[in-house]
């Protein structure tokens, strides 16, 4: 199948060139005939099964880098840095025009990026940054996790509660999402006298673990009025524990629920008023990349626009538009 496509594409190219030559000879106009040439992109991503975020991200990439949009895209998925690097080498051999990378690890990329540069292949990083010289890539499109955290925390502050007693459920320790989202909250709690942390533990993105943590807090009889969960799944687990103990939550209720990632079902919880706030972690980098390839990079690091949704203002359209 792939071979067939390749054959088709190359014969098309030959035909186009022949026409182009004829055209040139003929009128000297219509040089655009060669513009049909597809841009070859090699996309290296993490396994789409990793999370809903990644699934949405992969879908978005596949939807954007199509032949209709002028691309010939090859995909490679791995959660392992070495495998990704090997795939990058293969793409370089295949002589792609652009290498789009969401790196599993931050280090070890220098060598292969040098190779790419020598071969004249342009590299665009998305979602994840790496430790390499900025010369080695065109642009890096990332989310600013700290900004996501700050947005959520400032929204929380705007609720003007007399006292903030927060159950803080963290993601896998050391992940960039955890560092960014925890950092914003930690800073705020340290600065404000009426903000306090009831418990701060990692549920490693797992809703069952989050449920157990909140359960333990409830069982020990401590009071709290905010659950700050660093992703939607953990927020969901926490809410399950609250439901079990008959503690009300959501808009105008006893406990404020904050989640991240904007899963469709999570946004629906906002619409239903069961949760209060959900911070977006924008998985839709494809349009940014498309723009850079077609119009050139304006800056090295592109930070994507990310929203935060409030249960009182969210609309059904938002759910379909931003839900992943």
């Amino acid at each position: 199948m792939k071979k067939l496509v390749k054959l088709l594409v190359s014969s098309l190219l030959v035909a186009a060139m022949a026409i182009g030559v004829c055209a040139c000879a003929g009128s000297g106009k219509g040089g655009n005939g060669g513009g049909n040439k597809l841009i070859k992109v090699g996309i290296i991503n993490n396994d789409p099964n990793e999370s809903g975020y990644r699934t949405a991200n992969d879908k978005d990439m596949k939807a954007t880098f199509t032949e209709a949009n002028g691309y010939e895209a090859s995909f490679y998925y791995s959660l392992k840095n070495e495998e990704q690097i090997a795939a990058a080498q293969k793409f370089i051999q295949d002589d792609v025009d652009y290498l789009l990378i969401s790196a599993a690890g931050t280090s070890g990329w220098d060598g292969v990026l040098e190779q790419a540069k020598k071969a004249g292949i342009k590299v665009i990083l998305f979602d994840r940054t790496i430790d390499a010289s900025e010369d080695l890539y065109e642009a890096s499109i990332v989310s600013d996790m700290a900004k996501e955290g700050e947005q959520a925390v400032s929204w929380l502050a705007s609720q003007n509660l007399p006292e903030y007693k927060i159950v803080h459920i963290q993601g896998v320790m050391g992940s960039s999402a955890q560092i960014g989202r925890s950092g914003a909250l930690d800073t705020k709690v340290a600065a404000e006298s009426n903000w306090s942390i009831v418990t701060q533990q990692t549920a490693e993105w797992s809703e069952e673990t989050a449920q157990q943590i909140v359960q333990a807090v409830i069982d020990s009889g401590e009071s709290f009025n905010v659950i700050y969960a660093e992703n939607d799944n953990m927020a969901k687990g926490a809410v399950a524990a609250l439901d079990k103990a008959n503690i009300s939550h959501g808009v105008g209720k006893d406990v404020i629920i904050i989640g991240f990632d904007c899963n469709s079902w999570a946004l629906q919880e906002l619409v239903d008023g069961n949760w209060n706030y959900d911070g977006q972690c924008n998985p839709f980098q494809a349009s940014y990349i498309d723009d850079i390839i077609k119009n050139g990079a304006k800056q090295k690091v592109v930070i994507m626009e990310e929203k935060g949704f409030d249960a009182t203002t969210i609309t059904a359209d938002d759910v379909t538009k931003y839900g992943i």
Partner: protein
Amino acid sequence: MTTSENELSSGNSAKGFFSKLVSNQLFIPLAALLLLVIFNLIADPTFFKISLEPSSTGYFILSGNLISIIDNASELAILAIGMTLVTSASGGQDISVGSAIAIAGSVVLRVVKGYSDGISGGEFAGIMIGAFLLCVAVSALFGAFNGALVAYFKIQPMVATLILFTAGRSIAAWINNNENISINDMRFGYFGNFLPAIPIPTPVFISALCMIIIAVVLKVTNLRLYSQAVGINASSSRLNGINPKTIKLLTFIILGVCVAVCGFIKVSRTSSITYAVIANNIEMDAILAVALGGNNLGGGKFNMTASILGAYVIQFLTTTLYKFKVSSSAISAYKAVVVILLIIMSAPIVRKWITDQKNKRAAARLRKEAA
């Protein structure tokens, strides 16, 4: 020789009790449990408070740390059953159970998602039974796959199960086209939470049922004798008419069924699934439970009660750590300490030291008698 034995046994019945207790396999998990109980009693007696309060569904339910422990340990206890048998017969462990739970859960959701809304109780029960049976069949099949690699291809269990360990979560995601599924039907949550008007969490009943079933199976079949014999000496077992391959395969299939039950409970708890993190690292806890039960991870003799008790000890520890808000990333470090202690206690050199001490005391006694 026989006379000296008689003297010994008659002279030391009181002393014998303690040494008997220490040498009993249940001693380690029981002692660990006692230690945790005492620690909690001293640190905060309210740890043991149990209250009966209405939940958001309006029914009264029991809540408190102890309830949380026996509730949350259910899956682990069920897994410990299968893991103990696999360990006994094959002398190795299945590290794919976490991934296999993801698959089992995904199968359940795949069946239920199409139907869940607004169907009658009878229909719903039918669908749940169908989903459960399919999930058991699929998990048993994956168990058989692991078992076949171990029994027929003679691959070490850890290596053989590495395959499913690696691939399982992707398979789970593939089963549902990598969608995030949420079941909105309240009734789906009954199995992982509470049945209406029953104040005790359902997983407690399910795990109890599993324990009863395995107790009965061990009673009415030769599973214990066969798997122990195979684990200790496969060659000899074969010459006694046992087929070691079949027995190994059987234990893996039983573990597969345990996995299916766990997967079912897990997805019911949250009415959804996250392929990457569901039952994350549960294989290590299950293996730890078997080890904590004092069972030889190299196979052979086993004590099922001790393994199950081990599972509850692990959950007790986990809940205690949550309760005392042990800094987030340190929880695994605490578990590591337990593992280290266990390994040291079961190390031949320590065992030898303990028996040497025993022998020394016995020798001293004999010398005294002789004098």
